[in-house]
């Protein structure tokens, strides 16, 4: 766990009087990336549970940390990991199930915090953009991303009445968050032809997070593509 920005003097002008209380969940994200991602927010970074981790103990520790550092949680950002190398040639359902299952169990717990916060709250997944289109060589990561998109849309509809919005930021390439891939040749050629291709970085993703937080429920159940126009 790392305590993130509490310097409200340099706070982003777009944030409200009290900065959004943020929890970032991720896997192996560097401290520099954590800080860039959370600029303008107050909150903590916490590692997603690892394979085989005791979930009861994990949730207890996370809860204690939240009580101490983020008492009024209203923004949860899940940086979804990509499948490890060697798990993409054929879909690795065990990895999908473990990663998806652990994320759900954490989100269930956090959803209760968000539903009771009595302020507009957000769940934001930052993930591999190809959950929408599929990827011929990254089938495992695509499948997990597709599951998350389905989940987010269901959550947007189910938790909306509690003022909880849920969105996905689909990222094509962001080394700082360990989200990167090679496009297959066909897409690369089309991409080159379009002349766009600004990859996302953590600062841009942070900006998108502010946009979603500021929208206060106007934007929910959406996939915000930050892919330089690949999936236009």
């Amino acid at each position: 766990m790392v305590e993130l920005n509490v310097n409200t003097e340099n706070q982003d002008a777009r944030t409200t009087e009290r900065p959004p209380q943020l929890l970032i969940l991720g896997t192996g994200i560097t401290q520099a990336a954590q800080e860039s991602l959370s600029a303008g927010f107050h909150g903590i970074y916490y590692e997603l549970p690892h394979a085989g981790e005791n979930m009861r103990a994990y949730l207890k520790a996370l809860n204690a940390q939240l009580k101490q550092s983020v008492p009024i949680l209203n923004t949860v950002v899940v940086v979804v990991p990509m499948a490890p190398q060697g798990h993409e040639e054929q879909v690795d359902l065990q990895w999908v199930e473990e990663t998806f299952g652990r994320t759900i169990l954490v989100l269930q717990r956090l959803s209760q915090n968000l539903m009771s916060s009595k302020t507009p709250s957000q769940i934001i997944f930052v993930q591999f953009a190809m959950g929408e289109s599929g990827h011929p060589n990254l089938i495992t990561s695509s499948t997990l991303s597709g599951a998350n998109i389905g989940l987010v849309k269901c959550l947007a509809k189910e938790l909306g009445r509690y003022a909880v919005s849920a969105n996905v930021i689909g990222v094509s390439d962001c080394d700082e968050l360990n989200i990167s891939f090679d496009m297959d040749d066909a897409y690369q050629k089309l991409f080159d032809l379009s002349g766009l291709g600004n990859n996302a970085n953590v600062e841009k993703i942070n900006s998108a997070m502010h946009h979603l937080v500021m929208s206060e429920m106007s934007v929910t159940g959406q996939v915000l593509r930050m892919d330089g126009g690949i999936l236009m």
Partner: protein
Amino acid sequence: MFLSIKNSVLSNDAVKTLIHRIWRFTVLAKSMLKRLFRGGSSTENSSNSNESLSALTANMNLTDKRVLVSGATGFLGSHIAQALYDAGAKVTLLGRNEEKLQDMVKSKFTSDDPLAKKAPVTTLCGSVNNQDDAQKIAQRYVEEHGALDLLVNCIGSAEDKPFVFHTANEIGESMASNLNPIVYLCEAFLPKFVERKSGNIINFSSITGLVGQPMRSLYGANKGAVIAYSKSIARRYAADNIRVNCIAPQVVTGGLAEKMSDDVRVLLQETTPIKRDCVAKDLEGAVLMLANEQQGFVSGSVVNVTGGLVTW
């Protein structure tokens, strides 16, 4: 009377609730009366659907196409198998219950008409709990039939429950019943399709996987995963002349629609631009369309069967 209610008994909220309940009752009653007096269900327009499906089947050449339908003993699977059989395909039913499979063959696929030169329907009984199961099924299928032309996966089940109440076991079970068997079967048959440089897969997803639905978060997630997986393999194997598509229906009369409460069902029907319920025939039409070789350039798509309800 109104005054006395206002002044003494009911608060504004209670009055609103009462009015809302009366409105809901009126809507329900209207719908039930409609069903009664038109001598049928709210699917009355499905006769049009039947006629157009017959026309479609007549133009369809699936004769001798070898088709495996998984989830064949389910409501949807049995209808899809029947439609493919009617279109001339050599259908094999895959299910977990041998008795049910045999009953189906006897009741639905046995014809007394000697002129109906239809290939007999065969069955394969087995569970698809892991990749080994699927490999064995693929092996048995190939031994018996030589090769497969079309795999149709009609697998899935949903349970309505608030997101926060799902247990860890339910998360696994939802994957095991909505995503895993589809992936296992695709992975088992894809190498065989690659060898022959020909193959066609149709996976049933759901509109919930595309646009979400409250209380069905696990179902929606797994159906979303089916779509992403199908698109991925569609792109991966396109050069091997293998097509992969999904069908995303809304709830179907006789299927998941039966699990809905009457008022939600009425609301769904009223808000669907084509003013009727989705029926099995609608999905049969979608399957026949994707099965047809004339659709040979359609791959990686999700066919939305929602009567115009979801147009995005």
